[in-house]
């Protein structure tokens, strides 16, 4: 089991989806400081918290990796909601595509997401940003 590969299931598509927008949006994950050059511009934050790894049974514990994913997109304040909506829609679409019925590979990691809560929008008081955010639970499996 590698936690990094499980993070990648969720973080990589979000980063790619935001990078594909025009103009591109820089995305920061856990423990990555936002560059000073980006702190006043458009950017996005992805945070992933693990909430459990195993499930008890009558026998040995079985693996059941789960957690919560939070994505916050920061667009320019006082410019209307369109850009923030565009950013968060790209994120929601790409995350929703993870819940495919296609067969997954027989090795490596794969995961799905639960109900997406949001998007919620807020004009931030102490920053030059208008924020759109979503959160969802996830479940992942690592096949060795």
């Amino acid at each position: 089991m590698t936690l990094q590969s499980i993070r990648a299931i969720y973080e990589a598509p979000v980063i790619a989806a935001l990078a594909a927008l025009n103009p591109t949006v820089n995305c920061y994950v856990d423990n990555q400081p936002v560059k000073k050059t980006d702190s006043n511009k458009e950017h996005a934050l992805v945070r992933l918290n693990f909430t459990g790894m195993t499930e008890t049974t009558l026998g040995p514990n079985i693996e059941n990796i789960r957690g919560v994913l939070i994505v916050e997109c920061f667009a320019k304040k006082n410019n209307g909601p369109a850009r923030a909506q565009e950013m968060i829609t790209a994120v929601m679409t790409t995350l929703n595509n993870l819940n495919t019925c296609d067969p997954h590979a027989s090795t490596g990691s794969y995961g799905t997401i639960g109900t997406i809560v949001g998007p919620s929008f807020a004009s931030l008081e102490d920053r030059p940003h208008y924020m759109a955010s979503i959160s969802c639970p996830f479940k992942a499996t690592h096949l060795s």
Partner: protein
Amino acid sequence: MAKPISQLIPDFTEALKEGIQEAAENVVVGLIEEGPYWDGVFAASWSVRKGKSSTPTYGLNVRGAKRSATARTKPQGRAIKSLLPPIPSNKKLEGYTIGNMTRYRGYAMDLLPTNFGRQGGRAENATAMPDWFLTYYQGEGMKKKYEEAMTNVFKKY
């Protein structure tokens, strides 16, 4: 032969009413346990209202107090019980709306980023983990609190 559920639990509706009421209280206990404890105002400001409802917000004159940078104490056990709001009865199985009445709840619950106060859990004297609310609500914390209360009540019937 399968028995009707009413024979397994004689008064299923009564059990459900009591269970939901106990679960609401247990969910608030979890919110206080997991949430930040700065000057006590936020922890004592959870509101439980019957049915789908909005949560009232305090007036502008209710403000939190300053706190020492080294203060880390949080209420536990019985001290939490004294912070619980009244839980209305659930006679018609309306369910509950749970919310916090402080004006700064969005920041305290890490739903809005800020460089003030607990700074999204990054402050040196933060008393709750970053993203504590979303982790509690969407992770398993809240579900466990609900199930625990329901199981306890249904065992009595």
